[in-house]
């Protein structure tokens, strides 16, 4: 394993563990881990309904059928349906990043002329965060078409779904942005202004770069959540992964399709989670500019030669 700069030096500890002949510790830890897993597996396998649960949720044949789909039998491919989730997520994410930044900057503005905008921003964030996403999806997905407006009312369900996601998530993300903006010390503004930068220029070149660096982890946290919430757009009739899984289970009375959907969503979100970790580690390394991290404390007296 290549050591990321932000992680403790595991390789050194491990070699010490083995090198000092502490085999007993290794054997004990392995045995206990295997035993815990074995007990959990035994509880699962020996439960009275275990066979029913395994055939209903983890049947390989059903999982495969759900993955590939068969429209004529009444269900669609969960894998293909996931493509809709991915597209909705990517488009929503871009729009959210822009809209949320605008809202955050407006709410953090200080000019007296901008007061109406600040009020609107505050009301928007309160409303959008307070109303359950599912209700927003219903309101936009059924409400906008009902208006019968030319050009707006005849979009596909996915468009309304993305609009609802953007409406709801931009409020959350604008608060994340705002937290980032607040976290930049006021002296940074003062320094930027003293260099002759205008208010907007100091925001653009001094405040935002620092703020965004701080908020990347919570930002990506929200986006992992967004990836999963694209499943709610299925309520509007479009066939995304969760709806495809539901169709399969309703048609065949077997829930294995949901397991397939869960695995596919995991495959989507886990890389993003690892990417977040990577960004945090890289950012820490950059900020410290070569200085050692507190997490990487090596035994003080020894020379700094790493045995990795």
């Amino acid at each position, binding site marked *: 394993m290549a050591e990321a700069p932000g992680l403790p030096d595991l390789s050194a500890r491990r070699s010490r563990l083995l090198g000092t002949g502490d085999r007993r510790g290794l054997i004990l830890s392995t045995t206990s881990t295997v035993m815990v897993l074995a007990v959990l597996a035994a509880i699962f396998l020996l439960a009275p309904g275990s066979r029913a649960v395994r055939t209903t949720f983890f049947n390989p*044949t059903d999982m495969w059928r759900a993955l590939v789909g068969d429209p004529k039998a009444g269900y669609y491919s969960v894998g293909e349906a996931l493509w809709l989730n991915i597209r909705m997520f990517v488009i929503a994410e871009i729009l959210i990043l822009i809209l949320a930044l605008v809202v955050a900057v407006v709410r953090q503005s200080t000019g007296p002329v901008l007061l109406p905008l600040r009020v609107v921003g505050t009301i928007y964030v309160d409303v959008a965060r307070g109303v359950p996403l599912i209700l927003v999806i219903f309101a936009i997905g059924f409400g906008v078409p009902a208006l019968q407006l030319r050009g707006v009312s005849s979009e596909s369900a996915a468009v309304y779904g993305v609009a609802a996601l953007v409406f709801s998530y931009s409020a959350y993300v604008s608060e994340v942005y705002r937290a980032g903006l607040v976290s930049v010390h006021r002296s940074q503004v003062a320094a930027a202004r003293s260099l002759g930068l205008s208010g907007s220029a100091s925001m653009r070149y001094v405040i935002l770069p620092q703020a965004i660096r701080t908020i990347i982890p919570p930002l990506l946290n929200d986006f992992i959540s967004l990836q999963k919430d694209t499943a709610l757009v299925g309520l509007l009739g479009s066939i995304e992964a969760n709806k495809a899984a539901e169709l399969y289970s309703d048609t065949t009375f077997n829930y294995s399709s949901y397991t397939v959907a869960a695995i596919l969503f995991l495959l989507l979100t886990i890389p993003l989670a690892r990417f977040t970790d990577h960004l945090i580690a890289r950012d820490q390394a950059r900020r410290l500019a070569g200085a050692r991290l507190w997490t990487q404390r090596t035994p003080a007296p020894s020379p700094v030669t790493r045995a990795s």
Partner: protein
Amino acid sequence: MRQTTVAAVAAIMAASVGLGGCSSSTSSSATTGTSASASAKTAACTFAGVQNELYAKGVLTVATDQPAYPPWFENNNPSNGKGYESAVAYSIANQLGFKASQVKWAYEPFNDSYAPGPKKFDFDINEISYTATRAQVVTFSNSYYDVQQSLVALKSSPIVTKHTPAELKTYVYGDQVGTTSLAFINSDIQPTQTPKIFETLNDVKEALQDKQIAALVTDTPTAQYISSSEIPGSIMVAQFPSTGEHYGLLFAKGNPLVGCVNKALATLKSSGTLAKLTARYLQLYTSVPTIKP
């Protein structure tokens, strides 16, 4: 150490998958046995005789989903005995020797009705179509209604006049999730655009009114009810020929009570009660034209 753990996890997972794989064959053979004995044991189909087969002693627990739609139920109240399915349930209870007061209604969402584990009801009556695949997981009673699919559209929609098999392929259809209508749309109509699938029938109706779909596909009685009483300006375009589809009561896999219920259904059919209830609640829409998909 990490490798050992990974290997152990892999071994356990492989074992569980292996067990899951072979268990399907054993479970199906086991359940065939129970259903065979269930049909053989139809001697004591009386109030006293079925007590041991009930979910709760002394009452017949019948389940359905919420909202309960007309004309299958009325006023979203299954216990009023009105609506076809409510009336059928009370007629079956009567045949088995239960008084109306001894029938208890349970709320069971369709998506939950086929979950593994013990059921919270004796049988579920919720316009559930019998299919061979579904019957591997649950036990169905014999038919209490033979169903055909129909089209509902707004009167202004082109589908009202243009519905040759070729023209039918060009529309966007809507359907409630989990119905057999979707398989019908995709295998018989074969539209070029993917149908829209909603969570509830009410959502499909809303989509029809908003013109997000050209037509909704549902069973004929529901279609007739929607077009005549629910959506102003809508019309039942036509019904499609029968595909042999029928509604059955849903029981837990191998529930022996199905034997007595089937017997009750046979009596209701031969005595003309089912036909009477059909005429009363579902009417005989002989005037509905049939078109080919």
